[in-house]
């Protein structure tokens, strides 16, 4: 049985002073900053994020909102791929379902923040149903199915024309309700901030709690997990459903932000950037989603000034390089760089 785990167990005998590659590849524990630093960091970060939309022009709010949307997708996808070991190259499909839930819901007269609930519930259901057959597929097969799903998404949207208006797309009114004194970009920013914060906290708790541990157990040793009382069937379907719901909410916010959805927004490139996001950020790490989101938002703007092909080249090279040298992504790199420093800070709880 081939295990689809993403990290090797740490017990393997290795030279303590290996090459630079060995040093990069070494798994490391999460940073354990002292409590005062954590609290200060959260306070400063929260204050900064709350102020950003009030002092910046709308195009900056737009990109920061996009970063939070990608973060949300990354959190969900990492739950599935990183913690669960289930490959998905098709999260653009769930993202699209969420976006269209908001668009079609808005057309049907449902007020807008409420449509986000549909954007979470519908992909959750679809993810659950898809998770059932996915239970029987492993590694490569699941990759194949989800890749086909990503490629079929734009066509499926066009084919469902009565609902989606095909290639014409749907315009969305993303303005806040009249009693909220915010501009469109500020309103969606705060919605995305709320969603990403909730997503982050929930994922963190999931990852460290009983459910997260059962995900990892199923990933690393399915039969052992089952013997120890983990319900593999329920774990996998829930995992798929939860991961799809994250992508759905993100898609809904994306639709509200751009105020338009069309089939071509949800092509294979989007799915690939999601995969790049979690690989770059760090598989099976929660903060990785944020670093990966920053990467997929800002690197294409940098590379597209070089050549329209440079983004693809950069993504491809980065995927290969990270798979070889940085299996724990940027988070692994940060841990390697700051681990000793943080360990020396005063005020840590006893270790």
């Amino acid at each position, binding site marked *: 049985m081939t295990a689809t785990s993403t990290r090797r167990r740490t017990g393997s005998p290795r030279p303590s002073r290996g090459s630079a590659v060995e040093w990069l590849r070494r798994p490391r524990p999460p940073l354990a900053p002292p409590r005062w630093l954590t609290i200060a960091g959260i306070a400063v970060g929260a204050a900064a994020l709350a102020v950003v939309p009030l002092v910046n022009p709308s195009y900056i709010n737009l990109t920061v909102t996009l970063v939070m949307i990608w973060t949300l997708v990354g959190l969900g996808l990492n739950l599935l791929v990183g913690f669960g070991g289930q490959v998905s190259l098709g999260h653009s499909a769930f993202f699209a379902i969420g976006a269209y839930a908001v668009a079609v819901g808005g057309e049907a007269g449902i007020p807008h923040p409420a449509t986000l609930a549909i954007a979470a519930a519908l992909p959750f259901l679809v993810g659950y149903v898809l998770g059932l057959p996915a239970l029987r597929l492993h590694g490569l097969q699941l*990759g194949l199915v989800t890749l086909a799903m990503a490629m079929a998404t734009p066509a*499926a949207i066009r084919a469902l024309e009565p609902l989606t208006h095909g290639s014409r797309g749907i315009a969305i009114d993303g303005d806040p309700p009249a009693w909220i004194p915010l501009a469109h970009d500020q309103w969606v920013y705060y919605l995305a901030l709320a969603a990403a914060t909730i997503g982050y906290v929930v994922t963190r708790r999931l990852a460290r709690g009983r459910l997260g541990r059962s995900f990892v157990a199923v990933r690393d040793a399915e039969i052992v997990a089952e013997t120890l009382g983990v319900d593999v069937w329920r774990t996998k379907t829930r995992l798929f459903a939860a991961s799809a719901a994250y992508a759905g909410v993100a898609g809904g916010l994306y639709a509200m932000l751009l105020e338009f959805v069309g089939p071509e927004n949800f092509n294979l490139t989007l799915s690939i950037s999601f995969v790049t996001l979690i*690989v770059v950020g760090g598989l099976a790490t929660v903060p990785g989603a944020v670093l990966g989101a920053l990467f997929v938002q800002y690197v294409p703007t940098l590379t597209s000034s070089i050549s329209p092909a440079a983004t*693809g080249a950069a993504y491809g090279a980065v995927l290969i390089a990270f798979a070889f040298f940085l299996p724990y992504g940027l988070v692994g790199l940060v841990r390697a760089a700051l681990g000793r420093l943080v360990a020396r800070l005063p005020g840590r709880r006893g270790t």
Partner: protein
Amino acid sequence: MLLQQLADGIATGAIYSALALAIVLVFRASRTLNFAQGEFALLGAYVSWQLVVWGLPVWAALPVSMALLAVLSAASERALIRPLARRHQALPLIIVTLGLMIAINAVIGWAWTYQTKEVPALFGGGAVDLGGVAVSRQDIGIVLTVLVVAVVLGVLFEFTRWGLRMRAAVSAPESAELSGISTGRTMTMGWAIAGAVGALAGTLIAPELFLHPGMMAPVLIYAFAAATLGGLDSPVGALIGGLAVGVVENLAGSYLPHGSDFKQVVALVIIVVVLLVRPQGILGRREVVRV
């Protein structure tokens, strides 16, 4: 009308067969899917096009492009795949071949721009009337070429010493190593042949689809469907699967409402149904796991 659809389906199906054959060769060699297979084929088509522009006749350009792609494919196996294949993990391999797919596509776009190019048909223009069905010479040529390639590969695998080694290395790697077969070399060989077959498929289909960087992505997904249907480790299965997928795709495109859109969902439906109903495909061997 129906006969015409069938004939067209078989012609496109033959291309899916060829690419599915490449996928099967890679799968047999390293038990993985190469998501970059389509882009290898695309690169082969571009190399052929470039050589034709430089003045080579297309039938002379084809072998050069096949040889080049064989080397490239073998090199990527040695450099990128083998170090990861040893770890028996699906995810890093998927990530790496996915990265290869995007990178090759970007490099192609960079080198040859995103404008469409015209590749001369290997078997000339014009059509032949076969019992009331108009079939282009190129289509007939494609089907025959793919058949010949499949038969040659089949004979190579089944009746030669080298083929025996190849099969031994796949079915019992440890015993094969012990009896002096280099499994590493057979893996590289599998990738090399896959690269060459891919370049052939790319060059053959390019005149019909018009050469541009997005040309192979849809073809790849149909080829995956074909390989899944036929059985991922069966070359004959790939051939049959490709033809079947080509015919189904064409019929769906013509007879279903919103045909041209539903057509693109066909691959997904085939893959899902096959994997759920008969995961080993029509002719594949069932994978048995001893616990």
